[in-house]
């Protein structure tokens, strides 16, 4: 009998300790063209989803913000401008390639002084308790091996009254949209991935991982269980993406 614990990697089951490595391979492969692909795949709408996240963050001058799975730094750029010279933004990503791209991009755009970079795992955040006013994780939670552990870790490093924002693909609210979205994800996405990054497999994984991610209500309950209060979610673009919000009591 095989007692080895497994978890999903897209539609496959892989040993728990392997998932992080497999996810890392995907992001190493797409890092250089991640932004181009995001714009192509979402027709630029991902910028609007991120814009809504900024609006929901309530971040002001002097705040401390942690942008987990911050990747190429879209959110960190906005946060660094919002918190000003007296605030602090930490762009964190488990993947060195993504973090490298993000750091170069932010430096090129003149963001310095109030931003730090950390390569770390969302499940074991290397920060003291009650550190941040706001934590965001955009399109990252579905790649985390143990999501409950990651949510508890985020709850720990948030200040009481601080808020967590989880921006993630979710379940479309209409059947028709769901069908169109399925066709697009499994047929068009890998094809575009092949064209732009010469890597159809990574984009197939992205589409599969979206389907395996908990739906709106389940994620809300997971946040409740991790100790967040006043949890709620906002569907965007018909539920293709949802923004979950929770406050640390």
């Amino acid at each position, binding site marked *: 009998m095989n007692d080895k614990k497994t978890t999903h990697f897209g539609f496959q089951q892989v040993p728990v300790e392997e998932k992080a490595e497999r996810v890392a391979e995907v992001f190493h492969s797409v890092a250089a063209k991640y932004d181009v692909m995001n714009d192509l795949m979402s027709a630029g*709408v991902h*910028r*609007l*989803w991120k*814009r*809504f996240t900024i*609006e*929901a*963050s*309530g*971040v*002001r*001058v002097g705040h401390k913000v942690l942008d987990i799975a911050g990747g190429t730094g879209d959110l960190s750029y906005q946060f660094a*401008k*919002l918190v*000003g010279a007296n605030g602090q933004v930490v762009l964190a990503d488990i993947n060195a390639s993504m973090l490298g791209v993000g750091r170069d991009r932010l430096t090129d755009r003149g963001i310095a002084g109030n931003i730090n970079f950390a390569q770390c795992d969302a499940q074991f955040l290397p920060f003291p308790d009650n550190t941040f006013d706001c934590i965001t994780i955009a399109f990252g939670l579905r790649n985390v091996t143990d999501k409950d552990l990651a949510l508890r870790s985020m709850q720990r490093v948030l200040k009481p009254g601080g808020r967590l924002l989880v921006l993630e693909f979710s379940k479309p609210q209409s059947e028709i949209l769901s069908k169109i979205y399925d066709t697009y994800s499994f047929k068009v996405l890998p094809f575009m991935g092949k064209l732009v990054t010469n890597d159809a497999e990574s984009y197939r994984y992205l589409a599969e991982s979206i389907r395996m991610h908990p739906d709106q209500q389940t994620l809300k309950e997971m946040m409740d269980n991790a100790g967040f209060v006043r949890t709620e979610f*906002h569907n*965007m*673009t*018909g539920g293709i993406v949802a923004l979950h*919000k929770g406050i640390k009591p």
Partner: protein
Amino acid sequence: MGNTLTIAALASAEKMINAALRYDPATRIGLARLEGKIIALHITTPGIHLFAMPMDDELRLMGNWDGDVDTRISGSLLALAQLGQKEVHNLKDTGVTVVGDLSLLADMQRLVKNLDIDWEEMLSQFTGDIIGHQTAQLIRAKFGWAKERAKSARRLTSEFLTEELKTLPGKPELEDFYRQVDDLRLAVDRATARVEQLIAERKPTMRIEF
């Protein structure tokens, strides 16, 4: 879906405003001084809620803001537009209500009033200096002509109503009428004072002797 569309519309509006502001350095400096302040704008007709936040030397427009607000302004589109144009010291009867930091409203009002976008410089970016300048001259000349026509149309309408139709009194007539009213008021005041003096003179003076 509606939310995404609203965000898209505001993002486009923001882009346009900031592109125009690039050609008005004074306003940009003014905006930078207000960095981080949040203004909630509620346009009652049509019903629109939006939030404005100066960030760096640009203006950020948002459909949602889930945080503290410094100033809340509410009023119809017309009332708010008028507020942006006039120097108002008292909001009574303007149709606009303000809650929160009033000085922020005054600062924003000053910025809107002093907005001076260098259209010529903006044009030159696309057409080069010579064509840009010539086009700007042409626009200024046409704009000046239109302004002049609007002014003379106003004058002609007023003349038609006062001289031809005789439905309204002319300005000199009106001023003469006001002067007569003033004279009458002064004459009545003098007469009242005189009557009071006469009454006082006719009253016997009371003397108290010990």
